[in-house]
């Protein structure tokens, strides 16, 4: 049983960690967040590309490094610590992974090298105002048109939807399949209502009015591909959240030691000490489940894998809520300010908790059937 990072993963963690330490201090991040048009850094994006991060899990024949989810998780945890603003989840964890899982070889060849090189930003549009967490209960439609399709409907909260060069969108076909369709960013009939999300990442609502599209693979096969990409994506959000939680804990610990009230560092107050200890316990539980999720991705038994990943995200969401809320409380007023970093971590982990599925839904899904603990 080897649960530690291997040498290659450790090297990856060190490389990414030292880049972000140099480039992503709180001020630099705030600058990007508040004063840049794009909301993230093209220059850093290019550096991610140069380090091979954008093609980390992309096949070598498409210019990638052909690594696995274990390596991606290492990167995600570092990104969570630094709270990066670049559209990595949108482009790599979702967009490229969907193209890879559902697309034809020609489509992969057309899209993935651009992602890997840093020249293509992708987004995945799936949520709708009335769909809540469902992937299939959607109103967007796709109808055949000539050799391709046209897509119509409105999607919300599309991560990276503001700047994506290409968008993967889920829509129902006349056969009632939930297909995945590829739309050019400048296609006629596509309109964007761009905004910053609550956590500062950029996104958009997208309105599709008879937008020309091509199907990513066969629409009948798309849902299964989509679900397995989301298994991986959920596991990756778990790792990102663990990085963010870790930072929140250590920031809080540092603050308790330096902030003085009543003539002493507030770390002398046991009620605060014990709450910091509880945060540590929550973090360790979350870290264990992020690891469990990553290991579960290797499981060929799809229902078991899915249950494990969902259980992990449930633990992560609960831990993150606990750690995030306590981190703010233990900082007092300074934790409430936009200028101080801790609140930004709460914002990101809160957004993660509202991505793909929330704790209440996950509780239902994990509790269905035989549950997690079995006698095997």
């Amino acid at each position, binding site marked *: 049983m080897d649960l530690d990072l291997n040498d290659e993963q450790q090297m990856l963690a060190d490389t990414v960690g030292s880049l972000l330490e140099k480039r992503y201090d709180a001020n630099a991040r705030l600058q990007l967040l508040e004063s840049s048009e794009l909301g993230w850094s093209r220059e850093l994006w290019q550096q991610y590309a140069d380090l091979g991060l954008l093609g980390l899990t992309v096949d070598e024949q498409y210019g990638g490094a052909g690594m696995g989810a274990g390596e991606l998780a290492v990167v995600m945890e570092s990104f969570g610590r630094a709270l990066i603003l670049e559209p990595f989840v949108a482009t790599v964890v979702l967009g490229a992974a969907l193209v890879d899982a559902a697309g034809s070889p020609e489509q992969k060849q057309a899209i993935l090298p651009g992602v890997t090189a840093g020249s293509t930003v992708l987004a995945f549009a799936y949520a709708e105002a009335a769909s809540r967490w469902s992937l299939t209960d959607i109103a967007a439609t796709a109808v055949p048109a000539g050799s391709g399709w046209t897509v119509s409907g409105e999607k919300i909260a599309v991560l990276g939807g503001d700047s994506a060069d290409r968008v993967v969108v889920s829509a129902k076909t006349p056969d009632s399949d939930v297909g995945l369709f590829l739309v050019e960013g400048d296609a006629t009939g596509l309109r964007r209502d761009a905004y910053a999300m609550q956590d500062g990442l950029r996104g958009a609502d997208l309105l599709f009015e008879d937008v020309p599209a091509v199907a990513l693979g066969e629409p009948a096969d798309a849902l299964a591909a989509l679900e397995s990409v989301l298994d991986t994506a959920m596991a990756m959000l778990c790792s990102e959240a663990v990085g963010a939680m870790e930072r929140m804990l250590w920031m809080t610990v540092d603050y308790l030691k330096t902030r003085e009230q009543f003539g002493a560092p507030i770390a002398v107050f046991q009620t605060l000490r*014990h709450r910091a200890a*509880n945060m540590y316990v929550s973090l360790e539980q979350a870290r264990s*489940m992020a690891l469990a999720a990553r290991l579960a991705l290797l*499981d060929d038994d799809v229902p078991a894998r899915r249950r494990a990943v969902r259980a992990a995200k*449930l633990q992560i969401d609960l831990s993150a809520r606990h750690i995030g809320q306590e981190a703010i409380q233990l900082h007092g007023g300074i934790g409430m300010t936009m200028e101080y970093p801790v609140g930004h971590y709460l914002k990101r982990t809160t957004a993660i908790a509202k991505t793909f599925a929330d704790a209440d839904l996950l509780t*239902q899904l994990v*509790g269905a059937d035989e549950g997690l603990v079995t006698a095997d």
Partner: protein
Amino acid sequence: MNTALSKEDRAFAEEMRAFFASEMPAEMRERLGRGGHPSRDDIVTTMRILDDHGLAAPHWPVEWGGKDWTPLQRHLFAEEMVMANVPSPLAFNTAMVGPVIATFGSQEQKERFLPATARCDIWWSQGFSEPNAGSDLASLKTTAVRDGDEYVVNGQKTWTTLGQFGDWIFCLVRTDSAAKKQRGISFLLIDMTSPGLTVRPIHLIDGGYEVNEVFLDNVRVPADQLVGEENQGWSYAKFLLGNERTANASIGLIKSRILRIKRLGGTALDDPLLRARLTRLEVEATALEMSVLRVLAREASLPPGVPDPTSSMLKLKGSELQQDASELLTDILGPAGLAYRETDEVPAGFDALPEGALDAMPTYFNWRKASIYAGSNEVQREIIAKTILKF
């Protein structure tokens, strides 16, 4: 079985499972599976069978019957034992005094005590706590004064678990009253049949008797029953308490309780709120199990016998989940758990009691102890806080 385990580890666990199924009395396993408390005989029987197979104390040095197992194998062994409803070997014997004697005792003490301890020919009790020395254990006052070849011991121990069955008791005693707190403490082995030693049971809120007061009134103890050096007892006690980093997580117990809840839950678990509580308990237990495996995976690189924040974390979370599981079962049984009964026999014509009715509520009351003993959860939080705050 956990996906983190290698094929070899799984095979090992399967082997242990088969061993417990074939070698341990079926009647006992079945009775304990229904929530019964292990009797003295159950524990002794189990330890003898284990000893017959050379499995009484796998974590001891090999020359004293230990196995050259990895920390993970030892964990799997203990977990399979719990899951098979086999009572765990008496912790006072195999987890506490045994390793202390094996590590710090004289050759003569090892020969005299270790085989009998492994086999439970000696039933050990733990005499650490006193009425005024609980969390602040080092403030203990029981004294041992050297008189020729003997120590004369005076004082009182309390909370002595299963002391009513005890043959011997290992005690922390003060041998130097002038020295500061931790400095003047020694580790003494005392025959409980010694004149001047009396045991008085304490009635607990679950209705049972599992702890005792032990009074020591001019008890004369041969000096060769001192372990290690005089006034070094505190460091042996710390070794003893930090010896099993992952055992306090009680993960096997928690999992077996969850399985029991699922088995007994019936239609109560159609209630979405109860079901949700069960699910979150399962998720936390799964996370805890992975936390245990993470600690085991790096166990070899940790200094032995030193308490560290991960073992505190495991104890904290483990005790909470144990308590949550016991509480959930009472909530599932509802009014069926309200009657206090000594046995599950009912008069002719009455319906049989549902499984769990007898023990669910008492267990819930009893397991409040889990956050008090073995270092209270507040003490564990303090250990974690000290480590992360370095303050």
